[in-house]
């Protein structure tokens, strides 16, 4: 049972993932706005953070940059998962810099993706 934050502005994706993960026994919170996510991460502890790269207000990278200062690079590496539809080499390279797992949208294998999210 993990406390999972999903930062995703596509409502249907967020709601579906939330339900799927809840069914697997986790406590899930979803936010649409990057700024809201940054605020939340400062005050609440999450076991897992799933972050979409392309949000309405800021990018997922901005959230990571803001968070690593007080969460530490290790936490980012271990517990953050970047979700993205973009497979440009620049984006992937930057994502890899942080050392965290990267999930490509759409998921090819749903169960595998959920496992990655859960951190098993």
């Amino acid at each position: 049972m993990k406390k999972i934050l999903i930062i995703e502005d596509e409502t249907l994706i967020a709601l579906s993932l939330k339900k799927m993960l809840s069914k697997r026994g986790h406590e899930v919170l979803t936010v649409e706005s990057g700024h809201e996510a940054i605020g939340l991460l400062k005050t609440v502890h999450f076991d897992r953070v799933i972050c979409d790269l392309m949000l309405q207000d800021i990018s997922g990278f901005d959230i990571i940059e803001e968070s690593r200062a007080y969460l530490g690079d290790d936490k980012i590496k271990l517990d953050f998962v970047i979700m993205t539809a973009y497979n440009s080499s620049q984006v992937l390279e930057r994502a890899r810099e942080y050392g965290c797992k990267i999930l490509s949208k759409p998921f090819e294998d749903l169960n595998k993706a959920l496992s990655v999210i859960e951190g098993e």
Partner: protein
Amino acid sequence: MSLTRSGEEGYWKLSLQGELVSLYEAKKLVTAVSYNQTNLRFLESIILNRINETSLPRSIDEDDLLPSLELLLKEHNLLQIGDFKNFWQSLLNSFSLQSTLETYIKISAIHGFSTAICLIHPKGEANAWQLAPLSFANEMRPVPINEFNLLFQSLKKTKNKHFSSSEAKWSWLPLNGVFVADTFTYKKYNVIWINSREEFLPLTDTDHKRFAIFSRIMKIWLERLVELEFSDIKSSSVIWLIEHLPFEIVIKDSQDRNVFSNALFTEDNLGSMSWINLPRGYRLGYVAETIADDFEIDAFQKQKVLLLGDLFNTLRHELSNPLFGLRLSAELVLTSVDDEDFKLIFTQVLSNIQRSQNIIHNLSKLYSGEQTDTNVDLLAIIKESITLAKSELKGLYVDVSKIDFNQSITVEAKPVAVVQIIFNLIVNSAQAMKNLKEKAIIKISLELNSPFINVVIADNGPGLPATIKDNLFKPFYTTKTKGHGLGLALSKDLAIKLGGDLKYIPTEVGTQFELSLRKIL
């Protein structure tokens, strides 16, 4: 698309999505098209609507001004009322600054001047501009700003605005004889309005009175027309295009009514028109002559074809997220319902979503060139194309037969590309035969023509008029009112890229296309 003024170099540029085409070069290639005056009224209403939309400065209340002007002119015996009404009507009919000036000087009976020019300075800009009637010069010329200001200030100071071009300081003006001028200060422009007469006799009182009265009229009209001339609004480029197209055009509104045409269109040439979309649901149809330097159409088409690659990428990105969301939620529902019917339904939902994702995936692969050539079983490919086109083929009987050989046929090609081409041809045929009285048949046959194998797709539909033949594979050429006419151009392009070709085969009945592919022995 917009027509903008290039401040430094002093000429106008027609700009299409960032690609600049010099108007001067363009004008060398085109000849002015003569137009029908009555049809222009329709065009005027489009343009005026456009002006309203872009909220240009409104004129002073014309309804008040008109009667008092009429009275004034009558009192001074300067004009017959009938003549004035004609003048006013002509002004209403003109839609560009230059044509207005042209109208003005043509009515020489009422004002006695041979030339009228406008000097315009957009406030804050480094250049001023000079505009003469169409018959004098069809370009706007730059005017040194200091000369403009000097004249402007002099005019404002003097009461008697009467000058002679023999005076040295006005020699830069392209006028001969005497001239009289007025200054107008608008919100964004300073304008000098000059009328001249090619003599050196002094102007009479009557001349001055007449000028003063008409000046009041022109002050109103010029404000609107200067704004129109100088702003980037699209109607000015539409006007320019219409005035300068070297071929026949028709403009239809969103209800498909003809609002403007510069030629007589018969059923024959109407069938072979190409269409460009204009703002607000209007369409411009043209019958292009075969002009080698047909820059207008090439520019449009080139732009659109360039956009294709971007379009597919955008499409892919934009659709990707929604489809993903749909898939996730469908999966969720599928695992949460017990009802067998719902399970079945949502299995179908997932399958449809997968199909949609595949289409986008394959389309974008086509354009990224990722797909490698493989050995393709041609018959299987044809069957797949037919399956894809199923919804378009309702009620049609499609016969797939092969001729002359019975071994399996393998070709070297990108499977998706071949599917796309054949699919496109089938769909075209099907659409053309929607209203066919007899049984509609699309026959797909194979002919060996070593080292090629030809896939021949023939229908028994209405066929294509001979005039269309040359334009068939041009991008965005279409005889359909819907659709973008892209299919054939793309198909031919793909066929060539595959090392083959796509040809139209003229037949007596129906339509026939031939796709050649390289056979693998």
